[in-house]
């Protein structure tokens, strides 16, 4: 199995969720993160001083899928999250050796 770790714009989570559901991904986990990449950040002003805020709000969507579905899921995420502007984010694919369902205690074979 593969863990897809996607860093996307905060306002793209709903679209990504819908896209993943459509291709039948069973579940997902979302985390608020802040990130920094090509995107420049913005200046903030506190008490008259300008600061460079380099870590911008992003959302991380994590979904574990069967290896065979990984490609489709990556494409679904990319299609849903893309705006074409700098700051769209990344998808990282990470191998997962086992997955367990806590409710049943069983190894999950997806």
């Amino acid at each position, binding site marked *: 199995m593969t863990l897809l770790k996607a860093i996307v714009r905060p*306002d793209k989570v709903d679209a990504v969720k819908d896209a993943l559901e459509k291709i039948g991904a069973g579940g997902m986990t979302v985390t608020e993160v802040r990130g920094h990449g090509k995107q420049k950040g*913005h*200046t*903030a002003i506190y008490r008259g001083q*300008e*600061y460079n805020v380099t*870590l*911008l709000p992003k959302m991380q969507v994590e979904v574990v899928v069967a290896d065979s579905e990984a490609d489709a899921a990556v494409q679904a995420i990319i299609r849903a999250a893309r705006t074409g502007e700098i700051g769209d984010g990344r998808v990282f694919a990470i191998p997962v050796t086992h997955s367990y369902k806590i409710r049943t205690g069983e190894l999950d074979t997806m």
Partner: protein
Amino acid sequence: MNQADTAWMLIATALVLLMTPALAFFYGGLVRSKNALNTMMMSFISLGFVGVLWAVAGYSLAFAPGNNWIGDTSRLFLRGVGLEAQGTIPHYLFMCYQGTFAIITAALISGAIVERMRFSAYVVFITLWALLVYSPVAHWVWGGGWLADMGALDFAGGTVVHVNAGVAALVAAICVGRRSDYRSSGLAPHNVPFVLLGAGLLWFGWFGFNAGSALTASPSAGLAFTATFLAPMGTLVVWTLLDYTRSGRPTAVGAATGIVVGLVAITPAAGFVGPMSAIALGAIAAVPSYFALQWRAKTSLDDSLDVVAAHGVGGTVGALLTGVFAQKSLNGLADGLLFGNPAQLGIQATAVGAAIVYSGAVSFVLLKVIGLVIPLRVEAADESTGLDVTQHGEEAYVHGGGSSMQGA
């Protein structure tokens, strides 16, 4: 000069001033966190620009003698306003008291256009609006204008404040257009406790607004106080029961909204109706606003925080019901429908209609003209990033010790 009246009006004025920060929290809690400061600033900034302009010119246009339609320029820069009594309180204080009304009325409009209107355009709009719309309408009703002559009853501003702002909000929501993600995502309030805080402080301040409108520490103030006390209780009960009936789960945002709607509705009636009428008025007023709000959310009108449903509808219903429940034995002025004077209802409707037409038309022209000079909306990318960062260079909440920042 009456010292007791002065004591009461000192605190009443402070109470109404507090309503603007309270509104900032009521509104600010309802938006997403990326727009929290922008929304709050839309209230706070009115304290600056509208407040200063009120002293410079607005007060004169609203309260200097003038004619039936507008005051004159005799009190520009507060000329001739001094320590002497206006009624039974210092003239200065009277001017401040009335100024707090202008400030909050302008700020109310912001609820319709939060999360996408450009801050500079907004500031220009409400400042001019306070001068060109608020001041004349206030003159019509309280400055000896034609609505006063006609016998319209508006104790503390159902028409002048709420209908007036509600209509401007409607026009603004249309002119500015809807949020780009309106109806496509949840748009849930980011901080409901702030909404409750706002509602609580608004109620507190509203005692100054309504009971202060008696301008004296008199039984009339006591009557207005009592109505302001009881009407929102009636609204809160009905609103909660409506919520409960429809979904089994009465919401906190609903409770806060219900309280505000009750306060809005009782505003024109406060010093004119008895306590049981106040409860009834509050209870009745819950229904149209409740359903207006539900219905609006299904339309394409992005009146984001439902200023129209709460203030427009609530203010209109309150103004009309004033013509139903008013009781000459209590207010010394006029009876309403229930007490044998159906004509009053017609007068009330005329006043509301006049405010709708005037405020609607001038607000529209103002926004169109401003839009020629300053774009009314922020860039789409800025809307998506959030207005706090893009309009104010700040984030409302920073965690982890601001670890994302570096001195420039």
